[in-house]
């Protein structure tokens, strides 16, 4: 290795260190932005080092330059556009698309290397090459399906049919078996079959999973992409790819585990599918007991004369895009000296941290967003708990065994002195079960779309208090 190569490898290690430091700074909302900047500068360093390699090597053709620059401009432009215009509620889809292209690029690195090296490739490189091709391809097609389901372009219900599992297994066996064979005797033609099988497996893996489970799947695919990138690093002998890929692989894996734990389900159970059937507006069913229904004025009176209010946002808030409306109501109440805070359940909404991002978008200061463990003891001292489009995360059934959400920690909303629930109907949430909170004598139901309900309540409070 020449001095040049030495310097380049050290610069790559430095870039990877920037990624670590960046993630470290993400531990705290106050330093998170700086973390993103540090990480970005690491990336810029790595790209600059790569350019240096290319220039230093003299091997690139003019066509090569044009292709590379054109590709980067087209891709970069598309990425920039998508990132700038995406709605906060569509974040999971976008993350999924980035997983897709990342995994795809990693697979292409290996495919090119394999074709280029031809028969001269060593067995040990072959192993990582084929792992990269398979994992990258699965991620590519799987992530596109996941994004499609979330966007509503693909049927978000679990799509399954007899023999589906058999097809799945066959595809996996073909991809892995043929991949193993290719390690011994390389062949570009057979590689195509591996790629096709892996792509098909990605589709058949994600199709049977319900739309509501997609965030977990996306997080898992994020880990896959990281692993594919690390394998690409093995293939081309680049430590920056290995380190960064492993970082993402590990972090994606942990995040997936945390999400599954918070939902009290196993990752296996999610992948096998058939649980989260998307939004269940249709699944009307009522718990036994009488329900008290109120309107905006009733709700406004309760709120205006409370001294402590806790807002409990859930998926319905995101679905109705009512984050600005809730922030406006909260500010109005605060301006009247009422103590207002938000109770954020770890899996409220449909992706980790979903509520925090939404409310942050509506300029809610993050110290007002309380995590479950912090806020639960406060419900007993609360006059009104205002539940907005949250269902499962408030369901006392979780405290009993034998229900779909048994064992999931919940927000102790039922301890508040009175409870107002905003939702459109008695419909179920993600877990598809009745919520006993709604028949609690302390609870009043305000049936409406969250955005409309909040706007009306804010108006009613204003009229009431002048």
């Amino acid at each position: 290795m020449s001095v040049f190569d030495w310097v380049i490898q050290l610069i790559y290690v430095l870039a990877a260190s920037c990624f670590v430091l960046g993630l470290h700074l993400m531990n705290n909302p106050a330093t998170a932005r700086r973390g993103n900047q540090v990480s970005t500068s690491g990336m810029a360093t790595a790209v600059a080092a790569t350019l240096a390699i290319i220039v230093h090597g003299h091997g690139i053709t003019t066509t090569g330059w044009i292709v590379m620059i054109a590709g980067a401009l087209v891709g970069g432009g598309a990425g920039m556009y998508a990132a700038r215009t995406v709605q906060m509620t569509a974040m999971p889809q976008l993350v999924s698309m980035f997983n897709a292209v990342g995994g795809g690029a990693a697979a292409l690195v290996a495919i090119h290397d394999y074709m280029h090296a031809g028969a001269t490739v060593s067995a040990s490189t072959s192993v990582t090459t084929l792992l990269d091709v398979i994992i990258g391809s699965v991620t590519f097609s799987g992530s596109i399906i996941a994004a499609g389901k979330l966007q509503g372009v693909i049927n978000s219900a679990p799509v399954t049919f007899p023999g589906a599992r058999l097809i799945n297994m066959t595809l996996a066996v073909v991809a892995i078996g043929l991949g193993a064979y290719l390690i011994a005797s390389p062949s570009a033609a057979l590689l195509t079959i591996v790629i096709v099988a892996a792509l098909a497996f990605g589709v058949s893996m994600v199709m049977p999973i319900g739309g509501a489970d997609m965030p977990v799947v996306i997080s898992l695919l994020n880990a896959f992409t990281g692993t594919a990138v690390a394998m690409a690093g093995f293939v081309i002998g680049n430590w920056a790819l290995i380190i960064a890929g492993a970082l993402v692989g590990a972090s994606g894996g942990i995040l997936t585990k945390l999400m599954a734990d918070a939902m009290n389900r196993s990752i296996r159970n999610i992948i096998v599918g058939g649980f989260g059937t998307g939004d269940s507006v249709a699944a009307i069913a009522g718990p036994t007991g009488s329900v008290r229904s109120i309107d905006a004025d009733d709700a406004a009176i309760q709120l205006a004369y409370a001294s402590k209010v806790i807002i409990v946002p859930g998926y319905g808030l995101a679905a109705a895009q009512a984050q600005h409306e809730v922030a406006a109501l909260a500010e109005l109440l605060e301006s009247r000296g009422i103590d207002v805070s938000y109770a954020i359940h770890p899996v409220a909404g449909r992706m980790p941290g979903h509520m925090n991002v939404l409310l942050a978008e509506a300029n809610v200061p993050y110290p007002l967003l309380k995590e479950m463990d912090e806020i639960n003891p406060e419900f007993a001292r609360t006059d009104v708990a205002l539940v907005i489009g949250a269902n499962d995360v408030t369901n006392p059934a979780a405290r009993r065994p034998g229900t779909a959400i048994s064992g999931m920690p919940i927000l102790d909303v039922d301890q508040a002195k009175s409870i107002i629930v905003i939702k459109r109907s008695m419909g179920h949430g993600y877990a598809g079960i009745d919520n006993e909170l709604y028949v609690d004598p302390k609870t009043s139901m305000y049936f409406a779309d969250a955005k409309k309900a909040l706007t009306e309540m804010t108006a009613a409070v204003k009229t009431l208090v002048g």
Partner: protein
Amino acid sequence: MQYPALLVDVTIFVLALWVGFEVISKVPATLHTPLMSAANSIHGIVLAGAMLIAVTANNAVGYVIAFIAAAFAAANVVGGYVVTGRMLKMFKRRPAIPSPGDAPAAVNAAANGSSRKGTAT
């Protein structure tokens, strides 16, 4: 002295897995979405690999692969960082625009800020 590449790569991979494991297990739930998208942008490092394809490509297939790989990876890098930055910019201690409800909110925020510090480890 020299070491065989695969052995070194595996070792580096294992250590980096540990780093990833340790660094993430501290992130509070509040930041899980930005975290996912930050991790997302980091795997955009595959751009470095994609760029190198263009060096060895020498036929039409190679150039097509180089183009697509560069485009994919660049979309990942640029999009990932921009969207993460956009999200994080929204996390504020106090609202930026003063509003009628601002004063009590700010007091509240400050008080909560310190109590938060208290309960965090």
